[in-house]
């Protein structure tokens, strides 16, 4: 695993690049660990409170540990009318957790999100940012089983 200091340093030349650093950290850890947040604040010359304020403003960023696979369900109107509610219930049932929770083995986290710009194939979920198209409740077990 890359050291969080190296990850942050690789972004330091970018003016205002703290969000880029957060993205890079999340790519490695799936969330922004506390120590890394403090270090990023120092490198980009903002207070810890400000860095925390930025990290918590954006729904894509998380300061809490999450599962290896982050499942996000699009809830925006086109996905809503295409049956997003039924899909999210199927995901919750299959993993036996609720939205916002992580499975006990640390493998899956379920989150809701708004339109991810793949509305040609509603309803859509993403698994670690990769979109999965035309999801139905029936397809949910197969899709999740494919996550090793």
């Amino acid at each position, binding site marked *: 695993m890359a050291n969080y200091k190296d990850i942050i340093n690789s972004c330091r030349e970018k*003016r205002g690049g703290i969000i880029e650093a957060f993205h890079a950290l999340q790519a490695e850890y799936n969330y922004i660990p506390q120590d890394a947040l403090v270090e990023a604040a120092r490198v980009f010359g903002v207070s810890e409170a400000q860095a925390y304020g930025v990290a918590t403003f954006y729904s894509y960023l998380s300061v809490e540990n999450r599962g290896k696979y982050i499942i996000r369900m699009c809830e925006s109107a086109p996905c809503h009318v295409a049956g997003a509610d039924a899909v999210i219930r199927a995901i919750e049932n299959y993993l036996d957790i609720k939205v916002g929770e992580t499975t006990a083995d640390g493998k899956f986290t379920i989150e809701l999100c708004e339109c991810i710009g793949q509305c040609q194939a509603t309803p859509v979920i993403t698994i670690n940012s990769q979109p999965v198209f035309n999801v139905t409740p029936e397809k949910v077990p197969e899709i999740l089983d494919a996550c090793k």
Partner: protein
Amino acid sequence: MAEELRVLLQYADQINPESADDYVKVGGYKGLEKARSMDRKALIDEVKKSGLRGRGGAGFNAGMKWSFVPQDAPIKYVVCNLDEGEPGTYKDRIICEKNAQALLEGMAICGTAISSKQGYIYCRGEYPFVVELLKNAIKSAKASGALGDFDIEVRMGAGAYVCGEETALIESIEGHRGEPRFKPPFPGVEGLWAAPTVVNNVETFACLPNILANGAEWFAGIGATRYPGTKIVTLTGDIENATYFEVPTNVTLRDVIFTLGGGVKNGKKFKAVQVGGTSGAFIPEQNLDTQIDFDSMGSIGAALGSGAVFVLDETRDIVDVVTRISKFFEHESCGKCNPCREGTFRLREIMEKVNAGRGTTQDMDNLLLLSKVMQKAALCGLGQAAPIPIESTIKHFRYEYLRKI
């Protein structure tokens, strides 16, 4: 009879969007060459004359926007808005996936007009694959020499709809929370790191190469006179062909839905269409013979917005859909100003009550009153537009509300 008119997407799937060489083979970078041979004022005048208006929602004349940039400022920025957060919209992604070099060329043309050496593309966090594509496209364009000394950097957003608002977007590039700024000063005068900054949508930039290569008159002659050119629309909801189309701006909504879109899905009847994304008005059948251009949409109380076209069939429960939309706005409100922070919360609360069958006609009056307050008092377009789906459905589909009361 409505037909597609492919200008931005003419070579879709025939060229590699990352490759500057591919693009040059089909006539790319001729517009930039032309722009560089022109005097700055003549270049801006040419863009003004083409009648090109912003494709990001506000419909502002692009050349006019550029003309506000003070000439004497030492540093200026060109910023491309690829935040594309409006639900039901994915046309900017399509432009990048099919013709990314045209976007880069358009940004460089703008850079020439305002004498800027640095561009930024702010790409939404939901499109990491587009970020990669654009980085490769920029590398290819730089290597080919096409961009000259104009540099472009890609920055990634992180899942905040409000960052599509141009000043919130600037805040986000600066590494801050994406909260809109008070205007004035407008970005053209004081934008990114307090330097004059032009913010345009992807589609706006992508129109420019052809405008320069073929001339302002050519562009002004396409589509609707006051909002010329083509527009990429994305069809969602209960529609047979749930896909994207590039159409001249004088096509009617009816043609978009029933000719290109193949009509309502599964042979059902039409109930309503929401144009312009989730912040747009819902439009009933009797208004479908309206052209999709900015002003025509405005004349029926709607907005072309991003060009999203969301169709609902006769069986859909409009109050339920609008309740869902009210949750979107509550979630996406940045909380900086009170009319929106509190207003979106109350709108959602009342809509849920009505949707659950516990509402009264007094609730409907309150929704309309709150709607007026928010449209007048909210700081940015998010809070101003949030009540529009509610207001327009109470106007056109009042019976759906009354049925639940």
